[in-house]
């Protein structure tokens, strides 16, 4: 069991990944902007942590930063990414490439067709990581690949292993991606919108598979999504991001049943219900601000029904409220009466 300290200095025994103070900047023609700021969380062994947010929230930048897959103009300017006791940002690039990525952390993407290599067979792609980094003999690697394909529910894997990505359906391709991510038995799997491009009946199969991997192999999953319904089904813990910051963090039950941040409340309210509610849907007015136009103070203040003068002027700190961490002035225990 890994021993790490979380941001509050409390030692926990089960955290496999701890991200703290993570800040990423992008340089563009119009200047330098921080895509995410002061992002921190812990992922526990054998748990699924969902990062949920709308476009521009920074959820994907967070996962790409952990995988060190940021675009050329992106740079981590602060923070730590501690995997099983090692800060990845202190390791030489060579070490990251050969020992960490694909080995201890792997990633699956939304659109497997663009992430898979179209000119390599399924078998070549799955065994690549084993042959390159683990020095396993080719025959053994292929046997392992067949075993993994079977684990992710691909029928007749001996045949599939010789096929190319374009010969597979969308659901099968996503299973191949998961098999690739799984073959090295990583400690952490990052899944970025892995079911967003799939039909609902296929999405159900893939979510079921990820849940089974977590239970049977103890894989820890960081699940990045815009879809709160998927979060409700698969996550143990949730992080809600807005405009580059975490605004709320807590267990999935707490966040869904007692959302604290006005943005989380707005998001949950705006989801159309399956039980059929008449009338207009509750909405969050306005739009998500672009990276270049983030408001001063609290970044949500111009869309927030509870905003008061302090929210425009001062960025809120993070407060512990019940089981959650919330970035909102409303929960400042010392807040003065006139600001209420």
């Amino acid at each position: 069991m890994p021993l790490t300290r979380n941001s509050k200095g409390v030692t926990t025994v089960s955290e496999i990944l701890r991200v703290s103070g993570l800040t990423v900047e992008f340089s563009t023609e119009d200047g330098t902007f921080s895509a995410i700021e002061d992002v921190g969380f812990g992922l526990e062994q054998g748990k699924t942590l969902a990062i949920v947010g709308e476009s521009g929230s920074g959820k994907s930048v967070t996962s790409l930063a952990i995988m060190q897959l940021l675009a050329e103009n992106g740079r981590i300017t602060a923070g730590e990414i501690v995997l099983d006791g090692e800060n990845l940002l202190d390791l030489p690039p060579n070490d990251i490439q050969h020992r960490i990525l694909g080995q201890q952390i792997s990633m699956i993407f939304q659109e497997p067709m663009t992430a898979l290599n179209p000119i390599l067979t399924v078998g070549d792609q799955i065994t690549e990581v084993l042959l390159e980094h683990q020095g396993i003999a080719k025959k053994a690697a292929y046997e392992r690949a067949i075993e993994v394909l079977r684990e992710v529910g691909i029928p007749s894997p001996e045949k599939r292993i010789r096929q190319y990505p374009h010969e597979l359906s969308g659901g099968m391709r996503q299973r191949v991606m998961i098999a690739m991510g799984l073959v090295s038995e990583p400690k952490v799997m990052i899944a970025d919108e892995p079911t967003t491009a799939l039909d609902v009946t296929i999405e159900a199969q893939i979510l079921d598979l990820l849940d089974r991997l977590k239970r049977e192999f103890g894989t820890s999953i960081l699940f990045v999504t815009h879809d709160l319904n998927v979060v409700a089904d698969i996550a143990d813990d949730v992080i809600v991001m807005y405009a580059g910051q975490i605004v709320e963090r807590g267990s999935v039950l707490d966040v869904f049943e007692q959302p604290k941040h006005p943005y989380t409340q707005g998001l949950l309210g705006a989801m159309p219900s399956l039980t059929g509610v008449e009338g207009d849907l509750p909405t969050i007015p306005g739009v998500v601000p672009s990276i270049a136009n983030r408001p001063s103070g609290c970044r949500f203040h111009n869309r927030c029904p509870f905003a008061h003068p302090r929210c425009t002027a001062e960025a809120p700190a993070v407060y512990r409220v019940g089981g959650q961490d919330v970035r909102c002035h409303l929960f400042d225990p010392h807040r003065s009466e006139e600001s209420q």
Partner: protein
Amino acid sequence: MNASTGNATGNAPVGRGEVLLAARDLSKHYRVRQSFFGPASAVLKAVDRLSFEVYRGETLGVVGESGCGKSTLGRILLRLEDPTEGDVSFEGEDIVGYDRRRLRALREEMQFIFQDPYSSMNPKMTIRDIILEPLENYRPDMAVSERETLAGDLLEMVGLTRDVLRRYPHEFSGGQRQRVVIARGIALNPKFVVCDEVVSALDVSVQAQVINLLADLKRRLSLTYLFISHDLRVIRHVSDRVMVLYLGQIMEIAPVNDLFDRPMHPYTRSLLGAISKGDPRNRQERVILRGEIPSPLNAPAGCPFATRCPMADTRCHEEQPRLEPRDDGRVVSCWKV
């Protein structure tokens, strides 16, 4: 009998009202070359023998997975594509035989709002020109000042401001572009609007705004919608009745509450069973439907759903079921229910 299902999208009482549009045995089959050098042998049945009505003032939701034919259906109804077989009547007139002149007139009454606003907009046109394009075609004699006023009115109607008329699509967010496309769609004051996945690409907070906007416009302009979406939650919220498609065929049509509360067709049941309840305390076992949607090129001989249906028997594999009307106002195509 009045299967009243008053709903979020407009408050028109919907039951067996006046039929605005009716389709009879509507099919669109494509001949497809299966390999580059091979003969043009296979037939792809994008939609196959669809019969249904759309009542004036209702929202008919159309739901299904990839390859079910929902987008093809919308295009055929608006005569953007010709059906290979079958009839479509609009306000009692058969429109499949319309010539170009009459089609042109028809297109004032029927509009299409597309899924991806960015790719359906010319990036070099201003918002004013995009919104006024249909008017320049259909109302050439309208005075420029009058047009300008109308463009501004339309923008305000969809929740934008008049001062954006001179701006370009790239200056807008996805939700704002969708509003512009909606403004263009209602510019000619149509009666019937096909909305094809219009909120699918939008963020949750913006999606809710656009759904409310469509409901508001429907009430104000007495519109009738055919609302195509793969998202069952959105379908539940906006529809008065729902049509479920699978591999180009109708599985079930029912008033929205009946369909969601008491789905009859095994495919409707599987579809509803596969989606999350959105409640972490109630993570009931999803109904995991085995297998995948067959290619429409090799559609099964019998019921299209038979290859995945938990109830299928020999007859289902051999013989196609017919759409049978039920007492409660729904139609179902299944041998087993």
